[in-house]
C-alpha cells in the first residue's frame, strides 16, 4: 500500500481530535448493523413483496415504539458518522484554523438540524397512526 494511504488510515489526521476520530470509528460498525436492520425491515416487511412500499405500511410499522427508537438511533449514528467523515476529508485539504472552525460549526449546525428534523419526522409518522 502507498505511504500516503497507509498513514491516512493509521489514526487521527493532524488537527483531528482523537475522541472525534474514535466516535467516527465506533459509529462505522454500529452503522453496518443498524443499516442492515433498516434495509431488511424496509424491503422485506410490509403488505407487498418489496417491503414497506405504501404510506399505510410505514405508519403501521411505526406503531411499534421500538421502531421510531431504532430509526432515531440510526439517524444520530449515520449523521454523526457522515459529518465527521466529511470533516476528515476537508482536513485532508489542510484548511487554516479559522476556516476549519467555520466548517466545524457549519457541520455542527447541519448535524443538529438534521437530527432534530429526523426525530420530528419519526415522531410525526408514529403519531399519524394513533
Amino acid at each position: 500500500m502507498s505511504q500516503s494511504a497507509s498513514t491516512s488510515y493509521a489514526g487521527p489526521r493532524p488537527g483531528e481530535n482523537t475522541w472525534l476520530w474514535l466516535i467516527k470509528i465506533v459509529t462505522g460498525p454500529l452503522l453496518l448493523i443498524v443499516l442492515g436492520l433498516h434495509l431488511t425491515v424496509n424491503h422485506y416487511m410490509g403488505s407487498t413483496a418489496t417491503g414497506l412500499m405504501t404510506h399505510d405500511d410505514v405508519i403501521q410499522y411505526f406503531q411499534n415504539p421500538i421502531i421510531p427508537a431504532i430509526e432515531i438511533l440510526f439517524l444520530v449514528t449515520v449523521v454523526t458518522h457522515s459529518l465527521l467523515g466529511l470533516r476528515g476529508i476537508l482536513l485532508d485539504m489542510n484548511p487554516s484554523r479559522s476556516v476549519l472552525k467555520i466548517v466545524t460549526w457549519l457541520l455542527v449546525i447541519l448535524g443538529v438540524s438534521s437530527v432534530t428534523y429526523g426525530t420530528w419526522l419519526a415522531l410525526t409518522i408514529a403519531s399519524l397512526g394513533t
Partner: protein
Amino acid sequence: MPIRRDIGSWAFALNRLTAIGLTIYLFLHLIVLGRLAQGPGAYDQFLALTENPLIKLGEWAVVAAAILHGLNGIRIILTSFGVGVTRQKQLFYGFMLVALFIILVFTAKMY
C-alpha cells in the same frame, strides 16, 4: 488525495468517493422522507418513481456504495488498531471480493 496510483491509492479514493456519494444520498433521503408527513397521496406518488429504471439504478448504486464503503471501512478500522498492517493489500482484496459477492447477490435479488 493520493498521487501514486497503486492499490492503496485506489482504496483511499474508493473510501472518499463512496463517502461523499453516501452523504449526499443521506440528506436527499431525509428530505424526501418528509413526504410521509404530507399524507398518503404525496408519499405513494413519490414511491411510484422507484419503478423508473434510472431511479432503480441509483438505488442499486447507493447500496453498492454502502457495501463497498462498509467493508473498506472495516479494513481501515482493523489496520488503525494494528491488525493486518503488513497485509493491507491482501485485506483490501479480500474485503472487496466479499463486497463484490454481496453486490452480485443484491443485484440478482433486485433485478
